[in-house]
């Protein structure tokens, strides 16, 4: 008996008698051939008491530098937003935390209604009429949009902007290789997707065209122009590509929505909406589309209906898309998704509210602009592009980014993401991606500038000294 099981010796005797066997071993002996029995204890440590497990996990946690421990400007897909206390309270409630996927709708109305509300919120944000109940996370949602496009128009290739998050591009490639698609990458000019290269890359055999808004380098793309160009580039008679935008949901309080920009499918990383960082997951992926893609959507969708007494209720619907019904012809293999994280997302949006959501977007715009201007004044710091930015921007340093980051770290500041380390692109050498959230005040930004300036100067000095000694 462990602390999570409850079969006493007396229970055991009674149970074995009812089963009609002499021992638990006999149950296994009669079913598992000896040749594949382990025949020894697993080579793992002994079990620990609750308190000891807690201490061990606390000790591990203390060896991580979290956003509580330093002034962090890390972003690139996940952001240190303030998560309101009511989200902790609601996501910890047993009734939301511990049920399975709502296979029995009569006793799952709470969860199903949350999905319905979530779908409504995502649909409002994206300006697209249909949303699923969640995908795993951002990059895999993008790959799922690729699969939708493949099913929808059967072309043999994808065109993808280099402005996508590198993880999204890599995930798309991994998946596309599976379902037999080539991925053609379109480069950036002046910080945004090169419009000519974009249009030239798209042809009648293009299933989908992908871009990010704002893009990986923080720049606002001309989404409407990219959508229109993609649709026009396919040529006469050819099925136009499905235009897929990877969006940052936080930006949608101020930016034109994907729907308004002619986008067919919007996907994105949901973490900024009320989910904690958790070293990268779990969060959720948002997935919204135009009506015509409804029956090719991946994942669960909650729908409204009535019960036998005419009472309003919700069910999982359009299930003939899904793996448990359609099996090898399913529009996706997804089963368990991210319901609890999507709950955090919709609660967060309700908490921000109609006005708050816009105000937060405006706040990020103002502070991010200020941060970019402030850093641009430093010696050796050059903005990577001059496009509008929402919540994140890229600069180039004239010294080694990793070394500068180490120097800043000793001052308790994490100045941002080393672009080259993340993207692997030669052109990103020296690049630093700086993210701002409402948790980063003006004073924090000023401190970043001061610490960065000193770190860069020190790095320049030591590089010079090294050069002399060599």
């Amino acid at each position: 008996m462990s602390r999570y099981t409850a079969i006493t010796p007396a229970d055991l005797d009674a149970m074995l008698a009812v089963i009609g066997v002499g021992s638990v071993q006999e149950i296994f002996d009669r079913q598992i051939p000896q040749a594949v029995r382990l025949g020894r204890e697993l080579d793992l440590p002994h079990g620990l008491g609750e308190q000891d497990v807690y201490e061990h996990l606390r000790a591990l946690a203390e060896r991580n530098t979290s956003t509580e421990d330093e002034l962090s400007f890390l972003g690139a897909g996940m952001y240190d937003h303030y998560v309101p206390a009511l989200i902790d309270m609601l996501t910890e409630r047993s009734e939301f935390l511990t049920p399975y996927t709502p296979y029995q709708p009569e006793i799952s109305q709470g969860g199903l209604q949350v999905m319905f509300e979530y779908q409504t919120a995502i649909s409002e944000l994206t300006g697209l009429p249909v949303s699923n109940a969640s995908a795993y996370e951002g990059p895999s949602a993008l790959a799922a949009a690729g699969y939708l496009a493949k099913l929808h128009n059967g072309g043999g290739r994808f065109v993808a902007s280099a402005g996508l998050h590198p993880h999204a591009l890599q995930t798309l490639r991994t998946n596309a290789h599976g379902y037999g698609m080539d991925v053609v990458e379109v480069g950036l000019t002046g910080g945004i997707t090169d419009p000519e290269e974009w249009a030239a890359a798209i042809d009648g055999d293009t299933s989908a065209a992908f871009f990010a808004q704002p893009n990986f380098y923080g720049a606002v793309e001309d989404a409407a122009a990219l959508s229109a160009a993609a649709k026009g580039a396919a040529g006469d008679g050819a099925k136009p590509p499905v235009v897929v935008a990877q969006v940052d949901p936080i930006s949608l309080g101020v930016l034109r929505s994907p729907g308004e920009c002619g986008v067919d499918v919007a996907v994105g990383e949901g973490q900024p909406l009320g989910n904690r960082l958790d070293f990268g997951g779990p969060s959720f992926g948002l997935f919204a589309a135009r009506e015509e893609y409804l029956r090719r959507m991946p994942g669960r969708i909650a729908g409204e209906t009535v019960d036998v007494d005419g009472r309003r209720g919700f069910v999982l619907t359009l299930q003939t898309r899904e793996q448990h019904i359609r099996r090898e012809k399913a529009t996706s293999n997804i089963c368990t998704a991210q319901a609890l994280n999507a709950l955090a997302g919709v609660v967060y949006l309700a908490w921000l509210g109609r006005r708050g959501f816009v105000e937060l977007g405006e706040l990020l715009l103002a502070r991010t602009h200020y941060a970019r201007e402030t850093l641009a004044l430093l010696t050796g710091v050059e903005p990577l592009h001059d496009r509008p930015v929402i919540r994140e921007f890229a600069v180039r340093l004239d010294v080694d980014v990793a070394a500068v980051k180490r120097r800043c770290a000793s001052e308790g500041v994490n100045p941002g993401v080393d672009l080259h380390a993340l993207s692997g692109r030669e052109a990103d050498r020296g690049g630093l991606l700086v993210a701002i959230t409402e948790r980063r005040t003006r004073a924090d930004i000023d401190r970043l500038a001061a610490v960065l300036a000193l770190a860069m100067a020190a790095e320049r000095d030591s590089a010079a000294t090294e050069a002399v000694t060599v």
Partner: protein
Amino acid sequence: MSTTPLQRDRATTIFQKGAPGRRAFVCPAPEVPEVDPETLLPAGFRRAQEPRLPELSEPEIVRHYVGLSKRNFDLDSGFYPLGSCTMKHNPRLHERTAALPGHARLHPLQDPERAQGALELMWNLQGALAEISGLPNVSLQPSAGSHGELAGVLLTRAYHEDRGETRHKVLTPDTAHGTNPATVTMAGLDVIKVATNQDGGVDVEDLRAKADGDVACLMLTNPNTLGLFDPNIAEIAEIVHAVGATLYYDGANLNAVMGLSRPGDMGFDIVHFNLHKSFTQPHGGGGPGSGPIAVSERVAPFLPVPVVVRLKDGAFDLDHERPKSIGRLRGFHGNYGCFVRAYAYICSLGADGLRDASETAVLNANYLLARLKQRGVAEYLPLAYGELCMHEFVLSGGPMKQALQIKTLDLAKRLLDFGFHPPTVYFPLLVEEALMVEPTETETKETLDSFAEAIAAILSEAAEDPEIARGAPYTTPVRRLDEVAAAKRPVIRQAL
């Protein structure tokens, strides 16, 4: 009858509540010099109409969602014998440890030197999963079981391609979970079904006939979705390996064999774990989950990037330089929050505790099965295959439908009135009116007894009057819902 009646108020969504001007969030002041909005973001990019989100105060939001929570049944409230889903207790300790700021507020792009605790945790978890599965190389990246399956089939493809072979077929038994065939198609391969023999295992002759040089992989669940351990597993592995194919283990049923039998020792090359089943990650009403994979040496070069490695000096790092890797399956490193919980669980139980968990899960299942073999039940709900079971078992409601004029669905709905979550119904597909029961190790004998009594009571009630079950449930927030109408004219968002 229900222990805690769920709330029955009329459903009103959050979008139908509140009033203009109400708010819960107070936006911090920008503090920075004011700049012309056109400079910040030119009008052409700006949104004309803001999203019509609701406007409510914090207390209203809390009441709304707490109210919704009361319209959910959950594992902490009652028995949840949902077959294939392993609804075992979710220790609260795990929530506490996962919420520690050092875990919960750690940015995924933190420099590895300053995320050593997280990487060590991942390293330790990888090691434990390798030992439990008998397969030495682990990637924690996949987000759930079916994502692990996708990883596995893509790995198989890469493995064959690396040897200069293009293979097209993946074999799956007809008892397989729907994610198996769906995954195969997504990975660009073709599904070939293998028959089930009269004992509920793989039909070895059918397998032999279908195993040829074009087969890339056989995907199996063992114990399978009938709750039966395939006694021919060694022979099956031999047949599959003889044609150069890989053997994939769907780990949804791992809870039957932890510390007792290992997929790697059975001959499997690739296994996925469902941390949200066997390892207590709470299911969250439909996720999050986590679906790590463990693989044999020959498949290891193709694992997704990055991989957690230990350097010579003992420090941990993320290795992105793996030239043969299939690439990434998602952003960052996987669902770390789930790793914390699974790791806490493994630390709590240890080797003996994990074995005990599986033994008790199998004991509980067999006890419940034996209780349901009693007169008054077994005539209507016979065990579909076998005599004993592993951690779950599948009954057939066929005779019940014949004799009592109620279907498995009716029985399931009536169970709701008795305060139980019903078993999985209508899966696996090859069992008529299937009822798949998985009690798990964390239930007491008393709970199992009361469930068996409820089944017996419903059947004898149906013998008197089948209409009762056919009209059930009666005590739930809503009664039977019109799913056909929902699918025919889909309403999937609140009209505003």
